[in-house]
């Protein structure tokens, strides 16, 4: 160790900034070097002298005065605006990124990678879904061409029966209007007729469909199932057109005796229908089952209380013809 280094280390040692092994080394040097001994003595003397300029604790008044002045100054400061806070936050974030450039770069890379992968996945799924939709649509078109179902029919526009034939032509609308032609015995045609009897906006179409279904029932062509009878009962109960209701009633006539539901529907028509002709026809239809207790009660009620004298009269006539107890 030379004296120049020793002088620096003497200062460091005097202020407790020298490592232990350096202290030992310095001690060995100083012991054999009068110049460095003197240097150390001068420094220690300086430390003592410097303490003659002491550090004073600030006066309490000075502290209080300073604090008061600071509080006034802080109160006078305008509150920070939102954009100032935002700017400061952005600056801090930027500074943080500067402080960790590697982490920032990695974060950016990971973010970019995740974004690309996510975008690719989404694009793949989108393409797969689009392809699936196309396939589904194509399959639907194929099925539509192969089979026409009632769910695809918007309404029935017309029904025409070919003279002296079992053939009937039903015109109906789909999303794409279509046309079907077939026998009255064809289930698809019958389905359309039943749909027309319930849903068609045109009274003429309802009249045609109910008339055809009623004729089928009267002729005994496949009305054993509930479908057509139900359609006729619905028409009898709810259709606004009296012509349609009348045809429905005629169609149900063969089943009054065997089907209690049909009988109830006819009784309701007798009691509630607004058209006298229908009610009269209902009475006549019910005559074969006049011995039925419920039918007799209704006939008695109508015979006694109905406002229409013709209805009352017809009811009495029917009641007089049927035996009291069957």
């Amino acid at each position: 160790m030379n004296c120049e280094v020793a002088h620096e280390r003497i200062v460091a040692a005097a202020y407790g900034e020298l490592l232990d092994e350096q202290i030992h080394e310095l001690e060995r040097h100083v012991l054999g070097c009068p110049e460095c001994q003197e240097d150390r003595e001068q420094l220690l003397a300086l430390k003592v002298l410097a303490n003659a300029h002491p550090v004073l604790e600030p006066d309490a008044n000075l502290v209080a005065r300073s604090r008061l002045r600071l509080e006034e100054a802080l109160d006078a400061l305008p509150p920070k605006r939102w954009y100032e806070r935002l700017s400061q936050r952005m600056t801090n974030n930027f500074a943080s990124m500067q402080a960790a450039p590697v982490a920032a770069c990695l974060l950016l890379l990971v973010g970019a990678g995740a974004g690309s992968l996510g975008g690719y996945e989404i694009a793949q799924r989108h393409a797969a879904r689009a392809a699936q939709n196309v396939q589904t649509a194509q399959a639907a078109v194929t099925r539509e061409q192969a089979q026409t179902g009632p769910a695809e029919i918007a309404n029935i526009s017309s029904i025409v029966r070919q003279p002296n034939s079992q053939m009937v032509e039903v015109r109906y609308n789909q999303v794409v209007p279509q046309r079907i032609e077939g026998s009255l015995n064809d289930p698809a045609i019958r389905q359309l007729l039943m749909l027309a009897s319930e849903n068609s906006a045109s009274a003429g179409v309802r009249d045609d469909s109910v008339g055809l279904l009623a004729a089928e029932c009267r002729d005994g062509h496949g009305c054993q199932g509930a479908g057509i009878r139900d359609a006729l009962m619905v028409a009898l109960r709810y259709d606004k057109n009296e012509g349609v209701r009348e045809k429905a009633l005629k169609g149900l006539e063969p089943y009054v005796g065997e089907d209690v539901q049909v009988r109830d529907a006819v009784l309701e028509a007798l009691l509630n229908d607004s058209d006298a002709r229908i009610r009269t026809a209902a009475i006549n239809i019910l005559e074969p089952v006049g011995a039925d207790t419920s039918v007799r009660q209704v006939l008695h009620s109508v015979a006694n209380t109905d406002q229409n004298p013709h209805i009352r009269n017809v009811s009495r006539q029917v009641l007089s013809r049927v035996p009291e107890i069957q």
Partner: protein
Amino acid sequence: MAATKAMNGPKSAEERMQARAPEMELIREAQAGSRTAFDALVRQYEQQVLRLALHLTGSEHDAEDIYQEAFLKAFRYIGNFRFECSFYTWIYRIVTNLCLDQLRRRKTRREDRAVVLDRSGDEIDLLASVPDGRSFSNPAKELDRKVLGERIQEALTKLTPRERMVFELKHYQGLRLRTIGEMLNTTEETAKNTLFRATKKLRTQLAGLR
């Protein structure tokens, strides 16, 4: 002094972190705009700030100005504090910069004062409060204390502001050279060299007093 020494004590990093936790919470609240939290920080450091400024400038008026400016700056820029150093180092950095500016201005004006001025401009004899139990204070051996104090102050004013600051922070405030380097935005080695130069100059200046 006790506070500063405690900062440099042989505590583990974990212990220091635990000790700093309440202060960090205060800082976060102050960053969020809490004036109460900032006031608490001011009360925690105001004695040390005033002590340093008063000793460096030798003027109550200047110390008060430095106190005011330092804490206003701290309030304005506390949002920029990122916990990379202790708040103590951060606030001292602000104060030392302001003191350095003040010393440089004074150096330019050659405004050397051997006494402290209070707010009203009256002189305060710092040496009057020095305890009388030291060997060099014996009038029979050396100069009287008043002359001695004046000579020391005069010698200190001969240092560059940076040397003066390093000597102040090391000798009077008892900070580690590494902390001083952080405060002055320099390295520990540079701070050590600056301290060496300061002591050398002071020894030359005060050679006649030994």
